């Protein structure tokens, strides 16, 4: 039997151990809800999707002195498409089958995880999700891997979907509460789309929301893939997600009607997966125009009244402003030339023109299949009230004939011409306040900061810093390759860094050390 002294001693030891035990592993829910300046704990940075930073060390006056702090070369030909995460001074970013952890101060590699190359499209990887010391990573062969953030060792692995059916995965998971939200890719096959929540400790499925019904359901569509990362409103406790196009892609004859919930913005309860509302950006799409662009959450005035809004610059060429409490439209307006719709219906959804559906002898369509915008993140600048998007004003020709069948693509389409431009949209009217030409293709995603800077890139691989008020170039640096990602920014050791990527290289920019 233990003596009194022994019990006191044991109690003292356990208190000592408890107080010197490891700090709460990051990111925790507090960090995800209120990311501090020295973090970027999720794909969009915070839950709003605005990609707008309050950091002001780099300003329109001093940005001309922005210089390279360090770069990290992956030595791979595959271009980087991920937004890195910054947690506790370490950057985590990806390419298909690969995760790197790099010291954000020096650019030196800490660890690298390589997944054995398997089946599935290796077209891109948007980044990891993180929660309490775990890194969540999706693979081309449609598996979710959980890694230990300290050393990249595997904690568990679960199958998300069957790659042999045509699914693959590429998106950056979103962590909300104790749910890891993951989505799927794949529209070369007629597949049901879904969003799934899994347990961060085990990967076990907590719930699944199906965007479409299983293949073979008469007169119903498949598709609605959840290609990109959604956003979250903690006050309303709603996650907002965009869904992809229906399948078969270019032939809508087997799927008459609107084809819910493809090309839609949906609001789900993150604890149950229950659908709360849905707005369809492209009813009965036949042009491959996913509506998976960032659902950007903005609180502000709309025509004199305060609103909780959701804004999306959609692939089909329309800029949508919705009331995010109920999904009702506030504004639907094109943000470039489009020729495929007959206007909008009573719910402010576009009405597709049957004359502009893909045909055996071809139809000239604007925008092209790549869309008026695509995966490149837009940014909402709370200071100027401008919604800034990397747009592509393009034209394509679309073909579909019976011999193309009713499976997967079911036709062919070809880009004819396009031009890239950054557009700063007044969200209350859809008017474009300023434009910045980028070249013959699209550029990079967009990041804005409170000091009045817009960070992006052009069609030639130039990283750009623009004045958010008028779009004029204040700084640039030639990166040497195509930019296929969206920038992030954070503060570390009192220095503001902007991190961009081009080709297989990550670049960290800051003002010169004093």
């Amino acid at each position, binding site marked *: 039997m233990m003596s009194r002294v022994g019990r006191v001693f044991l109690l003292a030891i356990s208190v000592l151990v408890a107080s010197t035990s490891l700090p709460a592993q990051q990111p925790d829910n507090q960090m995800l809800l209120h990311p501090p300046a020295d973090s970027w704990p999720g794909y969009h940075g915070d839950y709003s999707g605005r990609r707008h930073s309050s950091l002001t060390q780099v300003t329109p006056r001093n940005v001309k002195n922005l210089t390279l702090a360090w770069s990290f070369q992956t030595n791979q030909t595959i271009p980087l498409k991920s937004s890195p995460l910054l947690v506790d001074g370490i950057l985590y970013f990806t390419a298909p089958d690969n995760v790197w952890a790099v010291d954000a101060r020096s650019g030196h590699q800490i660890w690298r995880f390589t997944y054995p190359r398997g089946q599935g499209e290796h077209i891109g990887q948007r980044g990891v999700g993180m929660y309490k010391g775990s890194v969540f990573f999706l693979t081309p062969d449609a598996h979710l891997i959980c890694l230990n953030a300290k050393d990249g060792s595997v904690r568990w692995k679960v199958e998300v979907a069957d790659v042999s059916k045509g699914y693959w995965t590429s998106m950056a998971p979103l962590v909300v509460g104790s749910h890891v939200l993951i989505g799927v890719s794949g529209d070369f096959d007629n597949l049901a789309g879904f969003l799934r929540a899994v347990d961060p400790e085990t990967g076990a499925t907590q719930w699944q929301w199906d965007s479409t019904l299983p293949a073979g359901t008469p007169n119903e569509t498949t598709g609605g893939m959840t290609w990109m990362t959604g956003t979250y409103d903690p006050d309303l406790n709603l996650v907002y997600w965009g869904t992809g196009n229906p399948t078969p892609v270019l032939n809508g004859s087997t799927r008459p009607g609107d084809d819910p919930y493809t090309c839609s913005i949906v609001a789900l309860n993150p604890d149950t997966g229950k659908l709360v509302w849905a707005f369809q950006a492209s009813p009965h799409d036949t042009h491959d125009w996913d509506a998976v662009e960032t659902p950007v959450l903005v609180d502000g005035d709309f025509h004199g009244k305060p609103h909780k809004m959701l804004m999306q610059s959609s692939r089909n060429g329309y800029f949508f402003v919705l009331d995010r409490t109920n999904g009702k439209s506030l504004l639907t307006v094109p943000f470039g030339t489009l020729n495929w719709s007959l206007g909008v219906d009573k719910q402010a959804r576009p009405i597709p023109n049957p004359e502009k559906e893909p045909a055996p*002898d071809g139809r000239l369509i604007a925008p092209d299949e790549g869309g008026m915008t695509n995966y490149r993140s837009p940014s909402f600048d709370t200071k100027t009230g401008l919604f800034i998007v990397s747009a592509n004003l393009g*034209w394509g020709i679309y073909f579909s004939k019976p011999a193309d069948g009713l499976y997967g693509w079911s036709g062919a389409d070809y880009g004819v011409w396009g031009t890239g431009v950054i557009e700063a949209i007044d969200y209350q009217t859809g008017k474009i306040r300023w434009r910045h030409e980028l070249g013959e293709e699209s550029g990079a995603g967009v990041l804005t900061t409170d000091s009045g800077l817009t960070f992006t890139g052009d069609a030639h691989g130039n990283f750009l810093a623009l004045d958010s008020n008028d779009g004029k170039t204040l700084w640039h640096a030639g990166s040497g390759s195509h930019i296929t990602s969206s920038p992030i920014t954070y503060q570390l050791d009192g220095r503001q860094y902007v991190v961009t990527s081009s080709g297989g290289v990550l670049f960290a920019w800051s003002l010169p050390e004093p």
Partner: protein
Amino acid sequence: MKFLQCTFGVAASCAVLLSAAAAQTPASSPQAGNQIQQSTPSATKTYPPELVESGASLFRQDCSFCHGRDATGGETGPNLTHSRLVRSDVDGDQIGPVIRNGRPDKGMPPFDRSDQQIASLVAFIHAQQYAQSGGKGGRKGVDASDLQTGNAEAGKKYFEGAGGCAHCHSPTGDLAGIASRYKGLELEQNMLYPRHAKSKVIVVLPSGETVTGTLAYRDEFTIALTDSSGTYRSWRTRDVQYKVDAPANAHVEQFSKYTDEDIHNLMAYLQTLQ
């Protein structure tokens, strides 16, 4: 037809069977005159089934997003089974460099792949080209025969009138024989936008001297040309004045003016210029 079945298991046997058939059956359908010449050496060569299968697998991983699972075109990437380059390829001598170097101007990245991997992709692409070129039905992509819905007379009127084409083009001048040089989709694409057309540029230096040439590069910061001697010259845009003359821009201006009927009629007319 399920893409995956043909691509993963049956493609190999498809390729072998079709190659045997084609060796005996020349293209003799009524549409043969419009179809692209099929009997090229690469189309009739047979590849070992295992090589085609491993190529199919690698193709799905690396290529299918842009070029489609069966190489007939996907998101943004062209149909390889109708490709001029693929038709003229012999054992990867054309295809290999494109895979390794990419097409940076068209958005295709380079792929660092071993000789064996390249060989398997080449085998798969040719097998697909072959599978797509045999007979009617199940065929994806756009054939010249799909593009024959227009009226040549109406197209001629459009060319000389509302289309504005006659401002720059002549059926007996620069467009004489155009339909012998380009056919089908390639003709239509170039008609809509001639991506190979060169732009001219005049650069005025601070001294007042002007330099003219063919536009070689332009972004916000740098303007470059090749002059009449073939020499490349560049300047910072901040240091010079310049004016670009891009004849292809007239095509861009036409996009919002065309009806689809205009396009088909124009195609019909251009195809008479043999």
